[in-house]
């Protein structure tokens, strides 16, 4: 008798892992090709020879720098305001908490262009809040670089909040309690116990937030417009370039693709492996 006979379950499972059923393999392959093909096309059609010239145009560098700066500023804003909100959502108990959580995550599913219009109605020159900002403080957000940051923060902050909230929720409250019995103040507990515990999620959430802000298009163009040097970020520059200089658009796209790949690698290697990497 072969030993395999005596372990029927194991042999069945082994054979099940060897071959993927055609019914699953075929659509899986289609999906994979579908996701990869456009990226391949981008690389195939890229004007590699003129790339240096196309990318050294001052407009490109301006747009790239603006994109990086605004995405970073939006991420910082999200950290400063979003992490406390995540803490409240994860740790506080009050009536209507579920509704608050749903509203916070709404921008995740809301079409960004709708977000842009909503921002205009709220913070625009005639918006319900923007009117007073203008009257009382002389602050105007739409069609300014600050407006870009506002639009990106609106769209990207929920990514950070959701990630950090999840981490805070699963973080071990028991060790925080142990820290308290050892004489740690609330601030010390947060700094020395909670923060290290959610560190990986904080980084992952920040990277997700930053990447989302970098690619923001709809809310930005609606709320902040498309003014080169002031509000024209990379996605907007690509869109505009595509209408009169497709090669430049492809070159710009390559830059964002590169950034995306870097982000992905950073996430994969360090922070997206799950709790085992702790």
């Amino acid at each position: 008798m072969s030993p395999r006979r005596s372990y029927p379950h194991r042999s069945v499972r082994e054979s099940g892992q060897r071959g993927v059923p055609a019914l699953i393999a075929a659509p899986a392959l289609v999906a994979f090709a579908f996701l990869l093909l456009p990226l391949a096309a981008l690389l195939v059609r890229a004007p590699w020879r003129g790339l240096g010239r196309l990318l050294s145009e001052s407009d490109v560098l301006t747009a790239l720098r603006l994109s990086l700066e605004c995405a970073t500023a939006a991420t910082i804003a999200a950290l400063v305001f979003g992490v406390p909100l995540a803490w409240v959502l994860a740790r506080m108990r009050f009536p209507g908490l579920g509704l608050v959580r749903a509203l916070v995550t709404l921008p995740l599913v809301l079409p960004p262009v709708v977000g842009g219009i909503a921002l205009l109605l709220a913070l625009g020159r005639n918006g319900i809040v923007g009117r007073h900002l203008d009257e009382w403080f002389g602050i105007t957000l739409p069609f300014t670089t600050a407006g870009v940051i506002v639009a990106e923060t609106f769209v990207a902050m929920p990514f950070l909040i959701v990630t950090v909230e999840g981490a805070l929720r699963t973080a071990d409250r028991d060790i925080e309690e142990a820290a308290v019995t050892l004489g740690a103040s609330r601030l010390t507990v947060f700094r020395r116990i909670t923060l290290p515990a959610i560190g990986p999620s904080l980084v992952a959430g920040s990277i997700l937030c930053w990447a989302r802000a970098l690619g923001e298009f709809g809310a930005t163009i609606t709320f902040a417009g498309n003014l080169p040097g002031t509000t024209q970020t990379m996605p907007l520059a690509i869109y505009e370039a595509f209408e009169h200089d497709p090669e430049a658009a492809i070159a710009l796209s390559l830059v964002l693709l590169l950034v995306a790949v870097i982000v992905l690698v950073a996430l994969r290697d360090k922070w997206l492996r799950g709790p085992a990497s702790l």
Partner: protein
Amino acid sequence: MTDPITASLEPVAAPTRVASTLTMTASVQRGTFRLDVDVTVEPGEVLGVIGPNGSGKTTLLRALAGLTPITDGRITLGDQILDSVQPAAFVAPEQRPIGFVFQNYRLFPHLNVRDNVAFAPRCRKAGRKQSRLIADHWLHRLRLADLAERKPAQLSGGQAQRVALARSLAADPGLLLLDEPLAALDARTKLEIRAELRRHLTEFPGATLLVTHDPLEAMVMADRLIVIEDGRIVQHGDPASVARRPATQYVARLVGLNLYRGTLGSYGRIILRDNAGTLVTTRHLPADDPPPGPVLVAIRPTAIAVHTARPDHSSPRNIWAGMVTGLELLTDRVRAQVTGRPSALVDLTPDAVAELDLVEGSEVWLSAKATDLDVYTDPQ
């Protein structure tokens, strides 16, 4: 004090606190559950707290630590009021001079052993260097010096337990709270750590509360014992007398005794509660006897004999019928569960079980000598 390391570190971690008495006369109401306790623990004394799950043992420790505020009464440690309802006073948990050793240790996973132990001194505003010295002192005392750089995940259960103890002691507490400190250990490690923990508790100058559900642990480590059931203290005393004369079924089961509640009448006749039959006890010297009234009767499972026919000509004065409803093999004997009036646990040798041909469902007769009944006044 020949050890140079110990000698040089001694002044650093010498107890700075004056050991003081803990008194707690308080209630904690949580939803429908209510804990009512009145305890005093002297400096250097270890009070064992035993009771079934959900009886309020952990709530008691949490109230002392300030993690669960009391809803009535007062907790004081020496002159200091830790928690009081009338007049209102509450010392926040991080301000209390306590050390809390949790059941699952709750070590900080991202800090190494030394930083875990140095955590409390750091919180108490000792400098980095001073904190390290204090930590090293306790690591040395608990034989953990070699593990100082390890992360908690790299420790065995026994090591983690010692780190948890070191971390609490490094806080220089006036009151030490231990919540089932050995429950997470395997049997062999438990034996080693128990002896060691006992030594450290003996050296600890302050009051200690040790929650456990292991009667042996309580016997070995506690100076005094309270039994909590359903939020109330149902028995207190030194561990040996609690074990010998349990006041509740819970403790009786823990220490392996049959316990019956009844009323002692004349001629040593005891009418058991819940229509569980009658037992007869001998009359001792008058001083030994409890007065007629509510009593408890404890009978060792080995003191009860099993017969297949009614034993007519034997001397025992307690004879009653029953049916075997369970047989369990213990290490060197068989414990039979016999349902009858009263029901009883009976210990037999495996030979006797075979000889009597006992199986579940066997009809048997039980007998117990009147002198083997321990009859004492029901404290409740």
